[in-house]
C-alpha cells in the first residue's frame, strides 16, 4: 500500500474495527473463555489491593505518578516564590527575615530545578513513549517504579528540612566554601546534598529506561529518520541526564565528604579549590537548563503540526538542531563563571559556544513559525500555550545571547536582569510547553477533554501574569537590583518594579489554580475525548482513550513520519498494519505482528527492534510486578536520609536491605522454553526470549558502564584540577605512590579479564562446566586484587584528611574498590545460579552481562592505575 496523502485532511480518517483496542476489566470467567483482548488485558494488568499499589509498574500509572509528584513540588516551589515576592513588594520589608529569605530562594530554586522540571519531563516520557513508539511497555518497568519511589521519598526528605528546622540556605548551586563545614555547620546542607542526591539517582534511572525504549523498542519500520521529534528530543534529554547528573552526584559526594569526614577537596588552605565545586556544579548546571528545554521543544514539535494541520517544516533540520543543542550545552558551563577570575583565552571557548547555541535554537523556532504560517492553525488551548512559549522563549533566548558576551555579563551578573533572563527561558521555555503537553495528551489518558474555556482562562492568566512578573525584572536589574538579597533601600527607586512583579506573580499563581480546578472539574465533567480528538498524526492516537493495559494488541508498522495522516488506504481508512507494498502481498513482518497479537498470552511479550532501522530483532518478556523495586527505593532513601542525621547503623541497615532488594528484584523467574517458543522462532525467524532480552540486558549494562565511566571522569577531572592548583605533586613532600602491590593487583585484574572471556566463550559452546569453573576463577582473582589493594591502602603514609591530593587519591581508590566489590557480588550471584543449572547455551544473558561489567571495571582500573600511580612519576 502506498502513502497517498502528504497532508492531513480536516476530517479524521475512519479507524477500522480491528484496530481499536478493547478496554476490558479483569474477568471472573475461566481463562479459556476469555477473548484474546481480555487475556492480554489480564496479562498486562497491575495487581489489585494495597500491596498491588506498591507493585504496580504499568508505564501509564508510573508516568502519572511521577508527573503528579513533580506537579506537587511545582506548587511547593511556587509557594516559596510567592512568599519571596511578598517580601520584595516593598522596600525594607520585614515580612521575612534575611535567613528565611535565603532558605526560601534555596528551596525554590532547588525544587524547580531538581524536583519539578526534569522529573516532569521524564514522567511525560514514561507515560506516552510506549504508545508514540508503537510498543507495549517500557523496557525496564521495574526501574520506573524504583525511580518514582526514590524521587518521591527523596523530595519529601528534602522538604522535611522545614520540620527539622534545618532548611538549606546556600542557593540551588551550593557554592563552596559557603556550603562547606566552616560556613554551613549543622545538617541543613546535608539535607541539600543527600536528599537531592537520591532524587538525582531517580532521574538517572528513568533516563536509562527512556534511552533504551527509544533506541530498541520502536514499532517495526520506525527508523530513526521516521521517529517522532518528541522521541528525538527525549533521546537527547536522556543522554544529557547521564552526562550531567552523574558529575553532580560525584561533586555532591566530594562536598559531603569534606563536611563529614574532613577531606579537603574544596579547602584552598590544604591544596583544594572552591572553584572546583563551581566547575563540577556548572558542568551539570548548564546542561540542566537544556535538558529541560529540549524535551519541551519536543512537545512543541508534536503540538504545532497537529494544530497547524500540516506536517512539521524542516523535520531533518529540527533533528539536527536537537542533537547540536545537546552537544553544545556541555560547552557552556563556564558561561556562569565569567566573573570568577579566569584567563581571557579560557573564556573565549565558552563565549563562542554560548553564541553558537543560538543557531540550533533559531532553526527550531523558524521551523515552527514556518509550519504555523503555512498551515491552517486551530487556536485550541494546547496551541495557545505553544504561542505563549514562542513569544516568551524568544525573549529569553535573546537575553541569553546577550549574557554570553563576556563584557555584558560582567555588568549584569548577579542582578535581576539574569533572574528575568532565566525565568523567561525556564518558565517560558519549559512550563508553557508542559501545559501545552498536558492539555494535548491528557484526553488520551483520562478519556476526557479538559475544559476549553477554563483552559483559555488559565492560559491568559498565566501568560499575562508571567510577563507582568518577570519583564520588569530586566529594568530593575539594569537599575542595580542584586539577586539573592532579601531587601532593598527605598532610595534605590526599585519599589514600583518590584510591586508590579509581585502582582504579576500572584496573577500567574491564579492561572495555576485555574488549571488545577480545570483538571478536577474535567475529570468528572469533561467531554469524552474519543480516540483521536485532535486528528493527531502519531501512533498514540490510534489507540483507545484511555488505552488498554497492553497499549497495542497488534503492533503497528510504520512507513511514514506521520503514520495516521499518510498511511491511509484508497478507501480513506488508516492502515498501520501493513508495510508499504502492493495489495495482496503479506510480508514476514506483517505475519509476525499478526501472530504476536495472538501469542504469547501468558507472558508479557514486547518487541525489540533495530536501533537504526527499526526492524524486528527479538521478542522478549517484559518483567512483571514486584515489590522489590519499591523496597529498593525506600531502602536507598533510608541510606541517604539516615546519613543526614549521622545514624550510621541505620545507613548500614538500609544498605543491607537495598542489597537484598536488588537480589530479590533480579531473582530469576524462569519460564520454560517450550515447543511453542521454538515453533514461533522457526516460523517467523525471530528469537523468542521468555526469560528476558539479551539485547536489552546488554544495552542496559553498556549504559551502566557508561554511567560509571562518567563518574570516573568526574573524579579524574577533580584530580587534574587539584593537580593544577598544586605546583608540587605529590604536595608536602609526600612520597610517590608505591608501585609493587598495585601492579600485582592490576595483573590479577587482567588475568580475571582473560578468564572471563574464556568462560563466556565456553557458555557459547555449551560447555557449562568450564563456564562455572571460569566464573569461580574470576571471583578468586578479583578477590585477590581487592585484598591486595585494601592492604595497599592500609599501608599508605597519609589519610584522606591530610590535603586535597590525599583526599582525591583515597576517593578514586575507594571508587575503584567499590566497583570491584560490585563486580564480585555480581559474579557470586551468577555463580550461584550457574551451579543451579539456570543457564544454557541459548539462555545466559546474566553471564554475558556480568562479563561485560568485569571488562568495564578492568578498563577503569587500568586508567586509574595509570593516573594515580604512573603519571606522577613523569610530571
Amino acid at each position: 500500500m502506498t502513502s497517498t496523502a502528504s497532508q492531513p485532511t480536516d476530517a479524521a480518517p475512519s479507524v477500522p474495527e480491528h484496530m481499536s483496542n478493547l478496554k476490558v476489566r479483569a474477568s471472573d470467567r475461566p481463562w479459556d473463555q476469555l477473548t484474546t483482548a481480555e487475556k492480554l488485558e489480564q496479562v498486562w494488568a497491575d495487581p489489585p489491593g494495597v500491596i498491588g499499589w506498591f507493585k504496580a509498574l504499568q508505564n501509564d500509572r508510573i508516568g502519572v505518578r511521577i508527573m503528579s509528584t513533580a506537579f506537587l513540588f511545582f506548587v511547593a516551589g511556587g509557594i516559596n516564590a510567592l512568599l519571596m515576592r511578598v517580601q520584595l513588594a516593598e522596600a525594607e520589608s520585614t515580612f521575612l527575615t534575611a535567613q528565611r529569605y535565603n532558605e526560601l530562594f534555596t528551596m525554590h530554586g532547588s525544587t524547580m530545578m531538581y524536583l519539578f522540571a526534569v522529573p516532569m519531563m521524564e514522567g511525560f516520557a514514561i507515560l506516552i513513549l510506549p504508545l508514540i513508539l508503537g510498543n507495549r511497555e517500557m523496557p525496564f518497568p521495574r526501574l520506573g517504579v524504583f525511580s518514582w519511589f526514590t524521587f518521591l521519598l527523596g523530595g519529601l526528605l528534602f522538604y522535611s528540612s522545614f520540620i527539622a528546622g534545618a532548611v538549606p540556605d546556600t542557593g540551588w548551586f551550593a557554592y563552596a566554601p559557603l556550603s562547606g563545614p566552616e560556613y554551613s555547620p549543622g545538617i541543613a546542607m546535608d539535607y541539600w546534598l543527600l536528599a537531592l542526591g537520591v532524587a538525582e539517582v531517580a532521574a538517572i534511572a528513568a533516563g536509562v529506561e527512556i534511552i533504551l525504549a527509544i533506541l530498541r523498542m520502536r514499532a517495526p519500520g520506525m527508523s530513526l529518520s521516521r521517529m517522532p521529534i518528541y522521541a528525538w528530543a527525549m533521546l537527547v534529554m536522556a543522554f544529557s541526564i547521564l552526562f550531567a547528573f552523574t558529575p553532580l552526584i560525584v561533586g555532591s559526594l566530594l562536598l559531603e565528604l569534606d563536611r563529614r569526614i574532613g577531606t579537603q577537596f574544596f579547602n584552598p588552605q590544604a591544596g583544594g579549590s572552591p572553584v572546583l565545586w563551581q566547575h563540577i556544579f556548572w558542568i551539570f548546571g548548564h546542561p540542566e537548563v537544556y535538558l529541560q528545554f529540549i524535551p519541551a521543544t519536543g512537545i512543541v514539535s508534536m503540538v504545532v503540526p497537529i494544530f497547524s494541520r500540516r506536517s512539521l517544516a524542516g523535520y531533518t533540520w529540527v533533528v539536527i538542531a536537537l542533537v547540536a543543542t545537546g552537544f553544545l550545552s556541555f560547552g557552556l558551563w563556564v558561561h556562569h563563571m565569567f566573573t570568577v577570575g579566569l584567563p581571557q583565552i579560557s573564556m573565549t571557548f565558552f563565549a563562542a559556544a554560548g553564541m553558537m547555541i543560538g543557531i540550533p535554537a533559531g532553526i527550531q523556532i523558524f521551523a515552527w513559525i514556518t509550519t504555523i504560517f503555512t498551515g491552517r492553525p486551530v487556536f485550541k488551548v494546547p496551541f495557545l500555550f505553544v504561542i505563549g512559549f514562542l513569544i516568551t522563549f524568544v525573549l529569553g533566548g535573546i537575553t541569553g545571547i546577550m549574557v554570553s558576551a563576556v563584557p555584558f555579563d560582567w555588568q549584569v551578573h548577579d542582578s535581576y536582569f539574569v533572574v528575568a533572563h532565566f525565568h523567561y527561558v525556564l518558565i517560558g521555555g519549559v512550563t508553557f510547553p508542559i501545559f501545552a503537553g498536558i492539555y494535548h495528551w491528557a484526553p488520551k489518558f483520562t478519556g476526557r477533554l479538559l475544559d476549553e474555556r477554563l483552559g483559555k482562562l488559565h492560559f491568559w492568566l498565566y501568560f499575562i501574569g508571567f510577563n507582568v512578573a518577570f519583564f520588569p525584572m530586566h529594568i530593575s536589574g539594569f537599575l542595580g537590583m542584586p539577586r539573592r538579597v532579601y531587601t532593598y533601600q527605598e532610595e534605590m527607586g526599585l519599589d514600583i518594579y518590584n510591586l508590579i512583579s509581585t502582582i504579576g506573580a500572584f496573577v500567574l499563581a491564579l492561572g495555576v489554580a485555574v488549571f488545577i480546578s480545570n483538571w478536577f472539574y474535567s475529570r468528572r465533567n469533561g467531554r469524552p475525548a474519543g480516540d483521536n480528538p485532535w486528528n493527531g498524526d502519531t501512533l498514540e492516537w490510534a489507540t483507545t482513550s484511555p488505552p488498554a493495559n497492553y497499549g497495542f494488541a497488534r503492533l503497528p508498522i510504520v512507513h511514514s513520519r506521520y503514520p495516521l495522516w499518510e498511511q491511509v488506504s484508497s478507501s480513506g481508512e488508516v492502515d498501520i498494519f501493513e508495510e508499504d507494498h502492493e495489495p495482496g502481498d503479506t510480508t514476514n513482518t506483517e505475519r509476525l505482528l499478526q501472530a504476536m497479537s495472538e501469542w504469547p498470552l501468558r507472558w508479557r511479550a514486547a518487541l525489540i527492534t533495530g536501533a537504526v532501522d527499526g526492524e524486528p530483532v527479538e521478542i522478549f518478556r517484559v518483567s512483571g510486578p514486584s515489590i522489590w523495586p519499591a523496597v529498593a527505593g525506600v531502602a536507598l532513601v533510608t541510606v541517604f536520609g539516615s546519613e543526614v542525621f549521622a545514624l550510621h547503623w541505620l545507613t548500614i541497615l538500609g544498605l543491607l536491605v537495598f542489597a537484598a532488594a536488588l537480589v530479590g528484584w533480579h531473582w530469576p523467574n524462569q519460564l520454560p522454553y517450550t515447543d511453542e517458543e521454538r515453533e514461533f522462532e522457526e516460523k517467523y525467524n525471530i528469537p523468542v526470549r521468555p526469560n528476558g532480552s539479551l539485547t536489552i540486558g546488554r544495552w542496559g549494562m553498556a549504559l551502566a558502564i557508561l554511567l560509571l565511566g562518567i563518574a570516573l571522569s568526574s573524579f579524574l577531572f577533580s584530580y587534574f584540577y587539584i593537580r593544577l592548583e598544586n605546583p608540587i605533586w605529590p604536595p608536602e613532600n609526600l612520597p610517590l605512590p608505591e608501585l609493587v602491590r598495585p601492579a600485582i593487583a592490576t595483573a590479577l585484574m587482567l588475568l580475571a579479564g582473560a578468564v572471563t572471556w574464556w568462560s563466556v566463550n565456553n557458555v557459547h559452546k555449551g560447555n557449562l562446566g568450564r563456564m562455572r569453573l571460569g566464573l569461580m576463577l574470576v571471583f578468586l582473582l578479583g578477590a585477590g586484587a581487592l585484598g591486595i589493594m585494601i592492604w595497599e591502602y592500609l599501608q599508605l603514609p597519609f589519610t584522606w584528611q591530610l590535603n586535597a591530593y590525599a583526599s582525591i587519591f583515597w576517593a578514586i581508590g575507594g571508587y575503584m574498590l567499590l566497583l570491584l566489590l560490585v563486580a564480585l557480588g555480581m559474579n557470586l550471584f551468577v555463580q550461584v545460579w550457574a551451579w543451579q543449572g539456570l543457564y544454557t547455551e541459548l539462555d545466559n544473558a546474566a553471564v554475558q552481562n556480568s562479563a561485560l561489567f568485569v571488562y568495564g571495571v578492568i578498563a577503569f582500573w587500568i586508567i586509574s592505575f595509570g593516573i594515580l600511580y604512573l603519571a606522577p612519576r613523569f610530571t
Partner: protein
Amino acid sequence: MTTTSADANDRAKRALVLSVLIGPLGWGVFFLVGYLIAEAACQTRILHNSVAGLNLVVVVVLGLALLALLVTGGGAIWNYRRWRERAWNGIRGDRKTEDLATFFALVSMALNVLFALAIVLTALGMLFLEPCQWT
C-alpha cells in the same frame, strides 16, 4: 539474508551513526583539550614564549583548532557528497535503507558545518585577546 550481508548491513548502520558523531566529537575534543591546555598554560606559566607575535599557548590551541577543522570540514565534505549522490541522483536499491542514508548524510553534513563554525568562532577570539590576562 546471509550472515555476511547481515554483517555488512550492520556495519553500514554503525557507519551511519558514527558519521553523525564526527562533527560533535571533533569539536568536543578540541574544546576540552584546548581548554585544558589553555588553563594549564596560564596557571603554570608554561608555553609563554612568542611565535610570530603570537603567544605560544595561542599557537598550540590554534594548531589544535586547525586539526579539528580538518576533521569536521572533511566530515562535512564527505557527507555532502554522500547526500548529493543520493538526493540528486535519485534513490537506488532498497528504499528504506536509502532513505535512512540520505537522512543521516544530511544530518551529519549539517552537524559538521555547525561544529566547524563553532571551532572558527572560538579560535577567532584568540587572535585578538591577551591569552593569559586574568580578568
